[in-house]
């Protein structure tokens, strides 16, 4: 277990270059979306396991620019079809548990009304096929006590839920052989 190593200076350089990627309010919200898929877990995992491959199965993305593969700290820049870029970074890649944890690194609350999130996507066996679960812990875009309607908890919850549902439908289609 070598996860404690001398502090890497690069952390601070990376952090500083992205500024306040975490305007962060006091009440986190939660999303939890699931889908069942008629394909073995290994086949479903094959579809989603590359952190940078989200553009192959998520219909809401126009473009994805990924760096760093599946290493901790790898990034992917998502260009939304509705406009705007957000940047995510990989926190944990667990082949054995078929699970990926990542977070929002650079927010763009006008494109996606969430100021910070920490997400997990995982595959497990279910009813002879698979289940994919996608979870999020997130904060609304405007974390003051009087957020406007497009930047409140409801807007953040809707954006996250919609994004997850579209993505899960894409994973299902691809894993069941009907996808793009």
């Amino acid at each position, binding site marked *: *277990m070598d*996860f*404690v*190593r*001398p*502090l*890497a200076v690069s*952390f*601070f350089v990376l*952090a500083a270059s992205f500024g*306040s*990627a*975490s*305007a*962060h*309010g*006091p*009440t*986190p919200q*939660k999303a*939890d979306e699931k889908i069942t898929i008629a394909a073995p877990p290994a086949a479903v995992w094959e579809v989603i396991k590359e952190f940078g491959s989200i553009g192959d199965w998520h219909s809401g993305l126009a473009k994805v620019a990924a760096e760093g593969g599946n290493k*901790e700290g790898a990034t992917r820049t998502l260009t939304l079809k509705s406009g705007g870029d957000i940047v995510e970074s990989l*926190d*944990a890649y667990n082949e054995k548990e078929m699970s990926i*944890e990542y*977070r929002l690194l650079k927010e763009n609350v006008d494109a996606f009304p969430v100021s910070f999130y*920490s997400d*997990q996507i995982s595959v497990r066996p279910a009813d002879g096929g698979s289940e994919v679960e996608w*979870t999020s*812990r997130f904060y609304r875009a405007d*974390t*003051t*006590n009087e957020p406007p309607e497009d930047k409140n908890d409801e807007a953040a919850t809707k954006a996250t839920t919609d994004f997850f549902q579209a993505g899960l439908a894409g994973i299902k289609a691809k894993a069941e052989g009907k996808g793009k």
Partner: protein
Amino acid sequence: MRRVVGVLAALTLAAISAKAAETHQAIYVLCQDAGVLAIIDTQADEISARIELGGKPASFTIDPVSGDAFITQPETGKIVVADLKTHSVVRTLDIGGQPFGIGVDGVGTLYVGDWSKDRVSVVDAKSGAILKSIPTGRSPAHLVISDDASRLFVANREADTISVIDTHKQILIKEIGVGHAPFALTLTPDQTKLIVANAQSATLSIIDTSSLTVVFSSETRKMPYGLAVTKNGSQFLVSNQASGSVSIFDANTRQPRAEVKVGRYPEGLAVIQDGNKAYVANWFSASVSVIDLTTNTEIKRIATPDGPRGVLAAAAPR
């Protein structure tokens, strides 16, 4: 002679353990989504009582003198005061702003961080009057007061710093740079070190409380959100939100000696002094994991009201 000393030592130990048994601790779990402060009996490891607070309480402290809990509600600008003996809300202090981190000095003064106004308010615990405001760095998260109540340490999440405040003079004496997004912090029992968990850089910073400098930094698991030190100071614990685990560090070598899987998105944690157990709030799972620190294993998972975040150990109410 040696035998006499041995007998005396045994008697002293017996007296200490008898005293420890008398003052066994409860675990208090603040559940933000449910608006409830739940009390766990640490002998049965079950919820023995719950106090309805309402709203979305974010953080709390317990005054060891009065036995009252002071709970911040950022979205209403209020502090709810709960009597832990009667399990009832006794008053509400309307201080305004976005109160988040909170500490009490034992003589009736509260220190309350304001998330969006970047300051700590000094508040009369009885009347709720704001006696003074002391500027901090951006987005003060959790804060901690030294046992002698002379120093206040505030984690400034968006400034990547710790503000050190002299509570007698009520002035800022130093702002210390740490990792990215410091959120949780705790003092060692001997008060000589402050341990800080930096959520975004996934690092720990250890500050010497005399020289007020960072004397040690290291990487840890991703998204560290909670910290606790065992009462004898030999181990410290870090909750890792991204990996759903608690890391247990040797305080001397400052190296991890174990990692225990818990529920999802763990946050606040606390260690009780009698029983060698730690309790961690699994925010997403709505549960508390009980960790046996002799075997470093999760021995129980207790269902809680929704959104458990803050956990404190304190004397059990009688």
